[in-house]
Structure formats: C-alpha cells, structure tokens
C-alpha cells in the first residue's frame, strides 16, 4: 500500500526466513565475533584476487542463508544483489554458479536495505514467493578502487572510515512462517549537501539519513519512542553526531534509540578504524549477524533499519564533484504471528 511518494506499507506478510553473515579477519576480532556464521581466513580466502575473495564471501553468504531456511537455489524465485565494485563484479561472479533469476542493484553502502526493500515490493505483488537479498564489501578491493594501493604509505584521516570485509544475505518469503516481518519501507532520495571530502563519508551521508527518517516518521505519524532501535548504516562517529544535529533542528531526538552499524562492527580501541566501519558489508554484517538474531529471539521487537550509501566514484571526486548520498529505510517487526 502506497502512503506517499516512496513510502510503503506491506499488506501481505513478508517474513525473514533465513539470514547469514560472512566476515573477514579483522571483523573476526570485533564485538560481533560470536554472531557471525562463517569467518574466512587468509589473504584472498583461497582465491586469486581481492575481487574474487569478495565474490566468494557473497556466494557463501547466500548458500548459508539457504541452508538455514532449508531451501535450495532452484527454489529461489529471484535474487537482489549488489556491491561496491565497478559493474558490481563482486556480485556478478559470486552468484554466477547459483543460477537464480537475478536483479543487480547499486546502492553503495545502502544496498542491504535497498535490496530487502526491492525484494519485499516484488513479493508484495505476488509474482515471486521466495527471494534473497545479498550484498558485500571487501576492504582491500574497495581501497584499491576508491583510494590508494594497500602498501602505499598514506596517513588515514580521523574522519575516515574502514570498509568492512563482510557479506550478508537475507532470505525473504511470502507467508506467515517465521517471526520477523518486513512491515514498511521508505525509498531514499539522492541528497547532496556539498560535502567533497572523500575521507569524510559520514558527513556526506548524514543528511540523506536525516531526510529519510524524517519523511518516514512524519508519514507514518510515529515517533522514535514507537521503535526499539533505529539502526543507521555506516555513518560512523562523525556522521552519527551530524545526524543528531540535523534531526535536532527538526525537533526529533533519536539519541536514546539510535545505533550505528559503523560503530558496532569494530573494537572502538582499534586505531585503524578512526570514525568507524563502512562499506556495504558493514551494515549487512551487523544486520544479518546481530540485529536479525535479536529480532528472532524477541530481544528487539520493532526496528528501523536505515542503510546509507555514498554515491560518488573516484572519477567524479577528481572532477571536483561533491558526494551525493542515499538512505533507504525498512521497518522490521518481530512478532509471533503476522497481523
């Protein structure tokens, strides 16, 4: 059911019937180490390049999610996926062997929420029954595409974020089967407040998160107090602080309910991390490893998941463009029976 431009309530039950998270070495030392399904070790995870390693992560995440839901690849109607690499090669090669009808998405670090939102809309139409949403990022593959060679001796700025090496997959099914349901969603707009610093992505993405949250709360006539958790994608420390300021101006205070994936994924004492984690895999990992588990166990009941993505490329940055951003929102509810 359409509420307003870009904001939907789903009238049919769309349940999360399986989910899995895969992570790399650094993430295995972080606070989520007990929640992740598969840890991959070594430089290339046994593959021949960082890009291929990312593909492998995504493939494992999908297979693991299907196993958990007792499904096989030929039972899945459609897969919605994307990653950060040019032409989404992490996804294209990772899903090649699974032979599932495929919709490629690019939402940068917002891909987890975007793919769940698109999959839910497909299910709502009744044309598909079982879908998978998957995304990933790899620190080394992202670093060499967006920044410098790994062994180049540069100083990381204190506003910089660390791209997570991780993948997460969510299996959605239509019907009254499990305990977690996708209830509503809000598509983000492309928002650009003129931030140009490629080492300060949190600042570029905070306005997009603010816009999406405000639009959703206004249209659904709810407040922060109606939710147990408002989880933003990867704003990091700097972006979260900016989000609070932006929302304060609109009279919304989410501080008590807010958590950010970029701040949950790594040990805060790790000096490499600076402002926090980032990357499509960051929100995918935190969401699939930790948040969905808490929803399933009933620790959390109502969660707004707002994944944010910065939509620049190295080329647009070199041409002097600012960084546009997008934030997609989904509302998940944990309940015994859909109503």
């Amino acid at each position, binding site marked *: 059911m359409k509420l307003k431009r870009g904001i939907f309530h789903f009238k049919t039950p769309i349940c999360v019937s399986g989910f899995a998270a895969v992570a790399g070495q650094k993430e295995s030392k972080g606070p989520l180490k007990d929640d992740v399904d598969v840890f991959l070790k070594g430089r290339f995870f046994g593959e021949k390049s*960082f890009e291929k390693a990312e593909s492998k992560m995504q493939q494992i995440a999908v297979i693991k999610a299907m196993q958990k839901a007792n499904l096989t690849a030929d039972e899945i109607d459609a897969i919605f996926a994307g990653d950060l690499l040019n032409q989404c090669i992490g996804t294209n090669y990772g899903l090649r062997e699974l032979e599932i009808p495929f919709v490629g998405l690019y939402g940068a670090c917002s891909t987890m929420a975007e793919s769940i939102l698109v999959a839910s809309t497909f299910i709502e139409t009744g044309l598909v029954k079982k879908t998978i949403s998957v995304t990933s990022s790899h620190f080394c593959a992202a670093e060499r595409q967006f920044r410098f*060679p790994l*062994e180049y*001796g*540069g100083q*990381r700025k204190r506003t910089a974020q660390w791209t997570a090496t991780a993948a997460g997959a969510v299996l959605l099914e239509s019907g009254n089967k499990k305990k977690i349901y996708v209830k509503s969603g809000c598509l983000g707009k492309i928002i650009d407040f003129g931030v140009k610093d490629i080492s*300060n992505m949190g600042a570029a993405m905070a306005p997009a998160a603010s816009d999406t949250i405000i639009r959703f709360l206004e249209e659904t006539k709810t407040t922060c107090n109606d939710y147990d958790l408002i989880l933003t994608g990867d704003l990091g420390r*700097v972006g979260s602080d*900016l989000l609070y300021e932006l929302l304060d101006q609109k009279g919304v205070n989410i501080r008590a309910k807010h958590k950010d994936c970029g701040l949950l994924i790594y040990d805060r004492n790790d000096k490499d991390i600076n402002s926090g984690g980032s990357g499509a895999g960051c929100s995918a990992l935190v969401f699939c490893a930790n948040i969905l588990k808490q929803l399933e166990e009933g620790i959390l009941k109502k969660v707004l998941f707002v994944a944010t993505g910065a939509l620049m490329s190295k080329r647009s940055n070199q041409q002097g463009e600012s960084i546009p951003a997008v934030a997609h929102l989904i509302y998940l509810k944990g309940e015994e029976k859909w109503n």
Partner: protein
Amino acid sequence: MEKKEYLNLVKKISPKANIKKTFLCSFFIGGLICAFGEALRQFFLYFRFEEEDAGAMVSFVLIIITAILTGFGIFRKIANIAGAGTFVPITGFANAVVSPALEFKTEGFILGVAAKMFVIAGPVIVYGIFASIVYGAIFYFVKLIGG
C-alpha cells in the same frame, strides 16, 4: 538546514588531525631519514666516491630499503605515523612506485604492474622534468643573448 550552514557544522564536528603529534612525528622521522642519508653519504665520500655519485648512491640505497620495507608491509605502518616524514624524502617516491606495482600484480605484469607503476609518482616526474626544461630553456636563451 542550509548547505552552507551544514558544511560549517561538518567542519566543527569533524575531529581534526592531532597536529602536536603529526608535526612532531613528521619532523622527527623525516629528520632521522635525512640523517641516515647523511651518514650514508659520508660513508660513500669516505670511500672516494665523487660528490655527485655519493648523492646518487644515497638515493639508491634508500630506494632499495623502502622497496623491501614496502614488500614486507612495514613501510605503510611507519608512514601512517610519519606522514610527510616519509613521503617528502625519496622514500616516499620509492614507495609510490613500488606499492602500485605490487598491488596490480593481479592484473598481470604488462597492464597491471608496469602500466600502474607511475600512477602516483608520475606527476612528480612529469612536472619535475617539465620545470627543468623550462629552466634549461631560459638558461640557454639568457646565455645566448648574454654571452
């Protein structure tokens, strides 16, 4: 919030570099590299190298040490602390050549390693050589007229 207002807020909230630390580290480590270079230079001069060749040998040795440290992944760690202390000396130039060469190995030795080798260090060569040509031309014509 207006864009301008927001950008000011970003400036206010974003943590600044710890300049006490970065300034000190760059001075100290940069100074140490240069002092080490001077020790090498004195060493080569002691063994009767020409002044010019001694300088070239210093560069040569520093480049090799940097290349090895880059290969072992140690240079990056030092550079993260040193900042300009490692990228201003010739060590920075060597690292800028070696690191992309190593990185793009997965794309092959022709289009990867070789083609990407000067992706960071190239500008220094291009503008250094260009500046020398400009200076050479001026010097040549001044000499022609004057002399």
